[in-house]
């Protein structure tokens, strides 16, 4: 299945926008997390956690799902394929992993935001800033971006066989 050039451009635009937007949203989430950790002011910590919940559910999750979906469309609709090149395969694995971790972690963020809404100073101090998840996620997303830009060579065994089958068919 190969997409028309117009459709491919549209899918690529949505894919790049959602992928880069995902990184930007995680950076914003990380900044809020740092603010929650470093601030001595209870209202600032509460506001940070409420904003982290809203950013997570309404910006990061939609962008992650859009990036995953458009990535699948781009792979299956172009000669790159999904399992032929290592960089595509690793990118797919890391994107699925990031999305699964994100979706499984967001209910915890909602619980902590709910605590932050009513907690006093001592309880707020124990909430932290979710820096491990945000920082780790950011590193994984940057690794995915590097793979997508550089597209390092390397066919999988499946890709190697497919490539030679197609060459033999054309010969």
């Amino acid at each position, binding site marked *: 299945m190969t997409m028309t050039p117009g459709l491919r451009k549209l899918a690529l635009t949505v894919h790049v926008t959602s992928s880069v937007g995902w990184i930007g949203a995680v950076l914003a989430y990380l900044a809020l*997390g740092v603010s929650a*950790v*470093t*601030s*001595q*002011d*209870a*209202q600032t*910590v509460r506001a940070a956690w409420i904003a982290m919940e809203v950013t997570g559910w309404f910006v990061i999750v939609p962008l992650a799902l859009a990036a995953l979906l458009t990535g699948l469309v781009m792979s299956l609709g172009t000669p790159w394929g999904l399992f032929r090149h*290592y960089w595509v395969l*690793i990118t797919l694995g890391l994107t699925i992993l990031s999305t699964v971790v994100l979706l499984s972690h967001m209910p*915890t963020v909602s619980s*902590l935001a709910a605590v932050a809404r009513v907690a*006093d*100073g*001592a309880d*707020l*101090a*124990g*909430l*932290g*800033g*979710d*820096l*491990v998840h945000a920082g780790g996620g950011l590193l994984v997303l940057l690794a995915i971006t590097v793979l997508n830009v550089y597209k*390092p*060579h*390397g066919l999988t*065994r499946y890709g*190697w*066989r497919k490539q*030679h*089958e197609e*060459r*033999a068919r054309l*010969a």
Partner: protein
Amino acid sequence: MATVPLWTDSNATENDTRMAELPAYPGTPRWVRVFGIIALAVVLLLVIMMLTGGDGGHGPGRNKPSSAVTEHGAQHP
């Protein structure tokens, strides 16, 4: 380089069998192996951090300094 037959025409004789040679798979690229080793090391590090519960580990409150958070500024009437 060792080769294996990709396909053969079952109706052809041995002499005119048409074969496309599939070169042997060159193996996994070095960068993939390096990437895999780094990923494995990171996973092991995370598992150790979770099991030991050390600072910077998993879960909320790991990054919080011990200082207390206090109410500042104007309060709601």
